[in-house]
């Protein structure tokens, strides 16, 4: 077993910059945490999930598709060094796995994989949640996991890439801390997870009337924050900018909460009402994606609830939905088998 003290953590990541483009949780001046370079601010691995989606390291808010000049067309270059992105909670890792599969399925999205390919993923778990609370261990799904245990981090590599970057750290005798945290992780129950499962059941059983979505839609100001904060939201828009000597085509995060998202040039709009759009936001995660991918694509990270100015993130909606439609003929609040 290898360990890192909190003081060793920053130098450890700094040492990886020779071989990797390192992105890790940093603390910004007003207390906001984000993914940044080690030199951009103090390391902030403690604190739980970052407010922004860590998958943005591979699928950024806005990024180039290609640049066309007189006779040449160029695509954005791959990073000079492979990315190393730290700070994924186990839920974030589940999100990453989901969108990895999404971007690879069928046609392979080369723009995504240009950054994603070869990237080293570092998870963060253990007692590093908000206020020092416990984040369950991921036990895989990443190259390397850093598990917080009181005054130190347990270093748990899962892949060759993970082994390689921690190879230089000294070995120490294991003292059972990892096993203890794993046990404590297993004992954790998440009410929101239960809620999301139950809401999914109800939606898939067609127990939620359209009027419910209209009511929630009345409370939506279409800020699009829920989509932009969601690690499994992958929708994008495309724009062309015409400069004198070149055209730049880029793509940016888009939102199904916007009326223009599906509106066609003819004016026809399959998502033409607030109720339909609100339904889509929840339904897509809890019913459509399970149908297509065999998995609910809300991994209960809570970002949309944090970012929503009017209190209708997916937990809030699921709670209201389960309270109102979950009691008749079903076992309200019980997880699906």
């Amino acid at each position, binding site marked *: 077993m290898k360990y890192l003290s909190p003081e060793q953590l920053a130098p450890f990541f700094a040492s990886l910059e020779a071989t990797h483009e390192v992105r890790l949780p940093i603390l910004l001046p007003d207390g906001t945490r984000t993914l940044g370079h080690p030199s951009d601010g103090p390391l902030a691995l403690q604190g739980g999930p970052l407010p922004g989606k860590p998958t943005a390291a591979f699928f950024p808010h806005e990024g180039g*598709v*290609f640049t*066309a000049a007189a006779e040449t*067309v160029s*695509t954005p270059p791959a990073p000079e060094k492979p990315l190393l992105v730290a700070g994924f909670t186990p839920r974030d890792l589940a999100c990453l796995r989901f969108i*990895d*599969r*999404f*971007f*690879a*399925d*069928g*046609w*392979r*999205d*080369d*723009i995504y994989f240009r950054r994603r390919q070869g990237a080293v993923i570092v998870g963060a778990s253990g007692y590093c949640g908000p206020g020092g609370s416990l984040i369950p261990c991921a036990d895989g799904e990443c190259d390397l996991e850093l598990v917080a245990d009181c005054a130190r981090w347990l270093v748990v590599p899962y892949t060759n890439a993970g082994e390689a970057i921690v190879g230089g750290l000294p070995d120490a005798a294991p003292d059972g801390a990892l096993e203890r945290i794993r046990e404590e992780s297993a004992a954790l129950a998440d009410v929101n997870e239960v809620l999301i499962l139950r809401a999914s059941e109800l939606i898939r059983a067609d127990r939620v009337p359209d009027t419910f979505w209209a009511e929630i839609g009345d409370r939506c100001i279409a800020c699009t924050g829920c989509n932009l904060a969601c690690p499994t939201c*992958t*929708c*994008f*828009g*495309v*724009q*062309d*900018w*015409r400069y004198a000597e070149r*055209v730049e*085509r880029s*793509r940016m995060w*888009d939102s*199904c909460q916007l009326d223009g*998202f*599906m*509106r*066609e*040039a*003819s004016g*026809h709009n*399959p*998502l033409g009402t607030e109720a*339909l759009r609100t*339904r889509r936001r929840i*339904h*897509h995660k809890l*019913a*459509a*994606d399970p*149908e*297509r991918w065999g998995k609910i694509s809300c991994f209960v990270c809570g970002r949309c609830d944090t970012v929503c100015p009017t209190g209708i993130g997916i937990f809030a909606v699921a709670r209201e939905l389960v309270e109102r439609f979950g009691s008749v003929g079903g076992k309200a609040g019980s997880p699906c088998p």
Partner: protein
Amino acid sequence: MSPQTTHMTEASLYLPVNCEIVAVIDLTPHEKLFRLRLVDGRPLGHLPGQFVQVSLLGWGEAPLSVASSPTRDGYFEMGVRRAGTLTAAMHELKAGDVIGIRGPFGRPFELPKLRGQDLLLISGGCGLAPMRSLIQYCEDRPEEFGSLTILYGAKSPADTLFKDDLAAWEASARFACSRTVDRITEGDCYSGGVGLVTALIPPLEIDPGRTVAVLVGPPVMYRAVVEELRKKGLDSDRIVVSLERHMRCGVGKCGHCTIEHLYCCQDGPVFWLNEIELLKGAL
């Protein structure tokens, strides 16, 4: 544990290839037919019912269906209505200009399942453009199908697409072709029927056991036409629809064309009715 990928492109998935405009033909005051060929001389390699992402540098991309059959060598065609900014820009182009395309994409009409069947080819408005790719295919491979009936409804005589083609199909012994317009105004040179395309269905004699109906048209058309077809005994597994959505990528990534769990650009645009009729917002 690398996720499975079925399609890889050599360059970027999102890089268009160049296409030369061979000819531009006015169809209506709002629609033009573009005849194109790939600059590198390859055939497009499409099947009837597929679409391409047309790329105009500076204007972006738009999904446009191919209006010609792959049985016609050396070129492909698209009927383009001036609707948004890209199509407006496209209408300014002329023979010799070069545009970009990506594709062909999407699920085509399922020819193996159509072979040997009587086909009822029903289209409305600019739906005739994608339908034409199938009609031309039938025209070129008549031996593969049973009876071929074309029904077409346009807003007005002036809005009627492919007038020459329609005339030819009407004259052809291989097709039974009926068309109609919603309304005529005085002075229109027009001899066909007036009314909705749905009105053309009741008089038809249909053997529901060996007929497949193919529908392409504006969203308002589907429900009414399906209702008439049901009266003729056609089940949902004998009705094919092609749906229009504003795909931004064509490859199942951008999310703009989803119908519940389906991606119209990959799982469609051609669907058997029974695959989508219960999905909210599909029709």
